[in-house]
């Protein structure tokens, strides 16, 4: 005999504004098998949970339906409350009255009626629920960190320092990411490399960190605590054990005119190369696309000059399988190429560059050794115009969001220029100055007041070349409100920060969600900023949204702490919502006929065979058996089973039928 309690939540006004919650509670109270029904403003709050616990005890409830938000949000909350009141947690179900009803419909009688229907279906389901018990699985205490920028570096060091193993995978030949390309950092103007490179070395030397550069994730299977990752180690064409990083090969390589990625095309590199002198590991790779030997079959100069014989032209990509318990995604961001803005002349005029290129010009390790010289003729520019929001906050042609870092780095760029070229003049066209952050506003003020950077509030409409000057046409929208024309020597575009080109494919490989801009989605925008919707996979840094260094480092440490929490237990509880093959009394034993269609359909290789024997040990029947450690509860086998012998616990055929019938029996 069912004694079910129904608890309808107002969710503040989220549900009650469009659904008549009191009527839903009242209607639920009339249903057969419902012993208690009520509504309350915040069911998830402490008084709300107490109300559920009390009702269970006072009314001897053996099932609970909470009509509130999505189970994604609060199912664990309510199941835990039920457990504390002595009820098996799997006897508690949620009717999603918010995402599935109040948020998507206007206030009306039909909306309330739909809420009642949703509750009724769940009541019918709970009547058939059976107590279930969590499955314990061991945790593999090794973390996989994808991306070796400052986010991946920080997360790796934190996890490794807590005593766990870390595998750090980086797609480029060196770790360091965008931060290694930067000159000075705002708001303190400390040199980016000076604060980053020691951490890169620490990564390389940490006994708990295994570094895999020039490698990418190929495949990820399994689930929290027990992932199986396949990593593609791209062929570096060198034997890393033999190579001592002497650099002879990179100086002798005859192919010297390849635009350097590290120097954003402002400098050149060779075909066998180390991206920058402070690279970690400081060993070269051969860029097959540009190597004469790989392209034309002739050269092999590097092999001839290598003193240790470390060159391996026949090396092939290697696939490595790894067992890991958690994954941190720290793949960073990219800069939008401003070619979609022909009015700015990027790509047409050499002296129109991006902010990242300016970083290289201002950096002591850059192509000009830190002197600000324009790319076309190497002259020191007397006038620079900086264009903020060159792509950001532009729904028509760029991206609608704010890239967040540009206001600050543009102020920094102008400041660095003024420090290096004292007689120079700098102008910044901006929409708004967004300098929210510790010491950020003060930094921008300093640029304006002390370094006399000219801030012009308005947009640039056109950049064109005339008599060797870049004419920047724009508008000053403040008091003077008039068109402005500046004859500049160089123009720097603060181009938008966008997701990495490979982000979407990576997200699909890992089954994590991503937004319409291909940034990875956090599980909850406020309360779960480093988790993804896939348990055991965490986010760090600008792969989630554009971020500056302090924010990236904080998030990386946050993600690391989530991994450490996961690794603090030896076993992990998993929901028992997995497939089971039925068993019945002799002489049937099971309705399974042993056709093993289910095994061929299972995407997780979770189905094996079981031999049913009699007391003498003689095999009577061969049936399918689900490995609870591998089963993900997807239900594919249920659909394939010809004899209806497999069910998902908690979502059995019988329960689903009861729900559908309840919906169809609409009064």
């Amino acid at each position, binding site marked *: 005999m069912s004694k079910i309690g129904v608890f309808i939540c107002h969710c503040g006004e989220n549900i009650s504004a469009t659904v008549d919650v009191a009527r839903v509670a009242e209607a639920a109270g009339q249903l057969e098998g419902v012993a208690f029904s009520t509504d309350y403003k915040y069911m998830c709050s402490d008084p709300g949970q107490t109300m559920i616990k009390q009702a269970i005890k006072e009314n001897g409830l053996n099932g609970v339906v909470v009509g509130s938000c999505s189970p994604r949000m609060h199912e664990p909350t309510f199941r835990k409350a039920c457990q504390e009141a002595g009820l098996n947690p799997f006897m508690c179900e949620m009717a999603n009255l918010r995402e599935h009803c109040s948020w998507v419909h206007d206030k009306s009688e039909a909306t309330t009626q739909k809420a009642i229907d949703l509750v009724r279906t769940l009541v019918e389901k709970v009547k058939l629920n059976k107590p279930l018990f969590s499955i314990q699985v061991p945790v593999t205490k090794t973390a996989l960190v994808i991306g070796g920028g400052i986010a991946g570096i920080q997360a790796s060091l934190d996890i490794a320092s807590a005593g766990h193993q870390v595998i750090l995978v980086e797609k480029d030949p060196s770790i360091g990411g965008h931060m290694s390309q930067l000159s000075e950092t705002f708001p303190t103007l400390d040199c980016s490399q000076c604060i980053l490179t020691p951490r890169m070395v620490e990564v390389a030397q940490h006994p708990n960190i295994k570094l895999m550069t020039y490698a990418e994730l190929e495949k990820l299977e399994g689930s929290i605590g027990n992932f199986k990752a396949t990593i593609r180690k791209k062929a570096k064409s060198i034997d890393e054990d033999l190579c001592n990083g002497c650099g002879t090969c990179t100086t002798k390589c005859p192919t010297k005119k390849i635009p350097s990625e590290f120097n954003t095309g402002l400098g050149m590199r060779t075909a066998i190369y180390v991206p920058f002198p402070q690279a970690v590991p400081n060993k070269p790779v051969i860029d097959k696309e540009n190597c004469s030997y790989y392209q034309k079959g002739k050269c092999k100069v590097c092999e001839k000059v290598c003193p240790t014989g470390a060159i391996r032209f026949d090396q092939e990509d290697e696939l490595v399988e790894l067992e890991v318990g958690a994954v941190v995604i720290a793949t960073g961001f990219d800069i939008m190429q401003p070619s979609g803005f*022909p009015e700015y002349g990027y790509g047409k005029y050499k002296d129109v560059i991006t902010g990242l290129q300016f970083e290289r010009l201002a950096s002591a390790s850059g192509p000009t050794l830190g002197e600000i010289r324009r790319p076309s003729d190497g002259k020191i520019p007397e006038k620079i115009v900086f264009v903020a929001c060159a792509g950001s906050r532009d729904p028509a042609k760029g991206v609608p969001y704010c890239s967040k870092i540009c206001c600050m780095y543009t102020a920094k760029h102008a400041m660095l220029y003024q420090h290096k070229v004292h007689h120079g003049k700098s102008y910044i066209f901006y929409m708004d100055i967004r300098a929210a952050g510790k010491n950020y506003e003060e930094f921008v003020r300093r640029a304006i007041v002390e370094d006399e950077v000219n801030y012009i509030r308005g947009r640039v409409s*056109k*950049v*064109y070349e*005339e008599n060797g000057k870049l*004419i920047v046409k724009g508008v000053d929208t403040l008091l003077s409100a008039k068109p402005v024309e500046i004859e500049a020597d160089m123009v720097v575009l603060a181009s938008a920060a966008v997701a990495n080109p490979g982000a979407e494919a990576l997200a699909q490989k890992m089954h994590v969600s991503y937004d319409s801009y291909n940034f990875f989605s956090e599980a909850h925008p406020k309360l779960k900023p480093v988790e993804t919707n896939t348990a055991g996979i965490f986010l760090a840094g600008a792969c989630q949204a554009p971020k500056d260094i302090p924010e990236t480092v904080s998030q990386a440490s946050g993600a690391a702490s989530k991994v450490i929490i996961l690794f603090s237990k030896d076993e992990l509880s998993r929901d028992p919502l997995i497939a089971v093959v039925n068993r019945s009394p002799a002489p049937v034993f099971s309705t399974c006929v042993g056709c093993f269609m289910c095994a061929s359909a299972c995407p997780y290789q979770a189905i094996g065979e079981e031999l049913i024997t009699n007391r003498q040990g003689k095999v009577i029947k061969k049936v399918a058996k689900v490995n609870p450690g591998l089963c993900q509860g997807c239900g594919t086998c249920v659909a394939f089973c010809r004899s209806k012998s497999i069910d998902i616990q908690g979502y059995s055929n019988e329960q689903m039928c009861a729900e559908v019938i309840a919906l169809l029996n609409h009064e």
Partner: protein
Amino acid sequence: MKIGFYPGCSLTGSSREYNESLLAIAKEAGIELVEINDWNCCGATAAHNLNKELSLSLPARNLAIAESEEMDELVVPCAACFNRLVMTQHELSEKKDLKKVISEKLQMPFKNEIRILNVLQFLEKHIVPRLDQLVKSPLEIDVACYYGCLLVRPQNVMKSERFEDPMSMDTIMQKLGANPIDWPFKTECCGAGFSISKTEIVGELSGKIVRNATGRGAKAIVVACPMCHSNLDMRRPAIDSYLNMKMDIPVIYITQAIALAMGLTPRQAGIQRHFVPVNLTVNR
């Protein structure tokens, strides 16, 4: 082939040569442009500054007439008329309620489904594919293609990807044997309606356009908008006084350029109607 044709007021007045040259090249290409019956004002700048419904009803009536004459396409050569018609079509297809209101005012069937073409779209679709056979005297000169503001805008309606640096006119001019120069003033403002009220502003804005085109070696400016044409051509005294020098670069419609390249006489192309004499060194 029959295609609907909405001339608008300019083509029957100050820019008759645009009309003449367009009809002449269409005829050469074997296309009949059929002027729709009893068309009315597009509303121009005045209507949409004064009365929203009027600004939609006026163009909508023209669209409905073209539909009633069973036209699939309607060519609107004036950039301003085109903008009003295409904006009306866009707005009424987005807002069904508003379309109902306007349809009631029209008191005639109105589906709002006709395909509206500006002159460049018309040329690209119907004339360019035939140009190989029709070009008889290639225009071997440097030209500056000037688009102005309305041909490629607004971006969300026109779906143009390069509305800051359009190329469609340049491509057509290339096909005529001309050399379109690379210049930065393709979409700069000519001064538009200030032509009447503040002519000196037109002198300055159009002056910069004329100076840049001349400075970069263009021998003619090619346009596709009556407003642009009259500012660059008719307002040449204001331009000369702003620039403090006499500029003699001619301004021609793209349809005139095509007519000349097709070997039609300058009179068939309406060349004689300009203020700035057109003396192109067209061969032969």
